[in-house]
C-alpha cells in the first residue's frame, strides 16, 4: 500500500493577456505576464498547473489558443485550462495544444450534457469540473457560474455527485467567500464534497499557509490543493513574488 503524495497545484488567473489575482472573485490585482510566470513555475518543478481565464464565459470568448500554445511549449508538467469552453471541439482543441485537462464550470451548469459529451470523447482523466460555491444571504450554499455572478441554484453536494456520474475525472472545488483571503480553505465544504464522491477533489480558495494545505489534505481528505495568492505574493498585502513551497516543506505538511 502506498499513497501518492497529494498534488499541490498553482492556480493562475488569466484576465485578457495578463495574470491577475482576485479576492472573493473581485478586486483584480496584476500579477505578471502569463507565459513568463508559467515558465518560472516550470523551473520550480511544480506538480501541475491550473490556468483559468476568469472572464471568458462572461464575455462569451473562446480560449486564447495562441497563449495556451506559448505556455504548453515551455511547461513540462500536467496542465489544465478552464474558461469559455462550451463544446467538445473546444476541449479537443485545448488538449491538442498540449494541455492534459480541460476545466468546465458555467457551460456545464447551463448544458448538463456537456460533461458526458466531453468525457466520452476525451476520457474522464482529462476533464475537471470546477464548482464555485457561495452562500446565499440565507446561508444556503449554491454553485455559481460566470465568475461567481450567476447563481445556478444548484446545491454543491448534489451537483458534485451528478458531475461524477456524468464522467468528470476530478472536481476543482472553490469557496468564493475564501478565495484570495488567506483565511484557510472552507474545510467543512471540502470534507462534505470529498465524502460525497469518489473522484479526486482539489481544494481551492483561501490557502494562506502550509498548515491550511495540511488541513485540507489530512483533515478534509482532499486529493490535491490549488494555491493562488500564496504562490504569487510574498505575503498577504505584500508584493508579487512567484514562489512555491520547498520539497521539505511540502513533505512535512503532507506527511
Amino acid at each position, binding site marked *: *500500500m*502506498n*499513497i*501518492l*503524495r*497529494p*498534488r499541490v497545484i498553482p492556480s493562475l488567473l488569466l484576465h485578457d493577456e495578463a495574470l491577475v489575482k482576485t479576492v472573493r472573485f473581485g478586486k483584480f490585482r496584476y500579477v505578471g505576464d502569463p507565459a513568463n510566470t508559467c515558465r518560472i513555475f*516550470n523551473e520550480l*518543478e511544480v*506538480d501541475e498547473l491550473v490556468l483559468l481565464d476568469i472572464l471568458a464565459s462572461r464575455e462569451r470568448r473562446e480560449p486564447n489558443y495562441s497563449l495556451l500554445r506559448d505556455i*504548453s*511549449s*515551455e511547461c*513540462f*508538467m*500536467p496542465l489544465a485550462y478552464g474558461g469559455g469552453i462550451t463544446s467538445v471541439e473546444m476541449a479537443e482543441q485545448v*488538449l*491538442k*495544444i*498540449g494541455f*492534459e485537462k480541460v476545466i468546465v464550470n458555467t457551460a456545464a451548469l447551463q448544458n448538463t450534457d456537456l460533461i458526458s459529451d466531453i468525457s466520452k470523447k476525451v*476520457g474522464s*482523466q*482529462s476533464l475537471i469540473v470546477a464548482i464555485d460555491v457561495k452562500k446565499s444571504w440565507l446561508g444556503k450554499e449554491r454553485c455559481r457560474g460566470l465568475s461567481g455572478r450567476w447563481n445556478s441554484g444548484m446545491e454543491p453536494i448534489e451537483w458534485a455527485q451528478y458531475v461524477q456520474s456524468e464522467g468528470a475525472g476530478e472536481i476543482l472545488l472553490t469557496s468564493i467567500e475564501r478565495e484570495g483571503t488567506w483565511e484557510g480553505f472552507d474545510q467543512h465544504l471540502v470534507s462534505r464534497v470529498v465524502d460525497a464522491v*469518489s*473522484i*479526486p477533489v482539489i481544494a481551492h480558495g483561501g490557502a494562506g499557509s502550509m498548515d491550511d494545505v495540511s488541513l485540507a489534505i489530512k483533515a478534509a481528505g482532499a*486529493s*490535491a490543493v490549488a494555491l493562488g495568492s500564496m504562490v504569487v505574493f510574498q505575503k498577504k498585502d505584500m508584493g508579487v513574488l512567484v514562489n512555491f513551497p520547498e520539497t521539505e516543506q511540502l513533505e512535512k505538511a503532507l506527511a
Partner: protein
Amino acid sequence: MISVLDYGMGNIGSILNMFKWIGVEAKVCNDLSSLESAEKLILPGVGAFDHAMSRIIELGILEALNQKALIEEIPILGICLGMQLITRGSEEGKKKGLSWIPADAKSFPKSSGLKIPHMGWNTVTSPHKNPLSVGFDEQPRFYFVHSYAVFCDDPESSIFKTSYGVDFDSGIQKGNIFGVQFHPEKSHRYGAKLLSNFANL
C-alpha cells in the same frame, strides 16, 4: 530524427514540445510512407485499448509497425497506452495487443482502496541498468495517469518499477523495443533526461 506516430489516440503536441525543448529533431508521422521511413519511433496513446488497436488496424499500419519493430529493429518507445499496446493485451479490452514483449496489462487490485486511475507523481526504480535510465542520479519521479498496469513475464524485461497498491512494471524493454507507463513529456527534467536517452540510442 524521431517520428511521433499520430494515429488519433491522444495528443502528441506535448511530446513534440518536449523534443523541441531538449533540442532533438522530431516530426509527426501520420501516413504509411512516413512510418516506413522512420528511424526512431514514439508510439503514444491515451484512451481505450481496443479503440487504439482498432485504429492501428483501420489505418492499415499494423504490418508496417511489426516490420519496424521486429525486422528492421528500429528503437521504438511506447508511452502510456502505447506501452500497453506492445504487450499481449489488456484486461481493459478484448483485442490482441502487438505482442512485442511478453507482458499483460491488468486492473489494479480493487482491494487496495486506492483511487483509480493512478494519477499523479510517483517514483520509479530501475531493477537493472538500462539505456533509458542513464544519468538518473537520484530517485526520479514521473507523472502517471492510468487505470491498468503492466506486468512482464520475464523480470529481465522490466526496466522500471513503481508501487501503487501493487508493484508493477512502469518501464519495459526487449532489445530495441521500450515502453514506459508514465508521461516523460510531462515529467520535468526526469522526462527530458529519459527522452534524450532514447534520442541518443
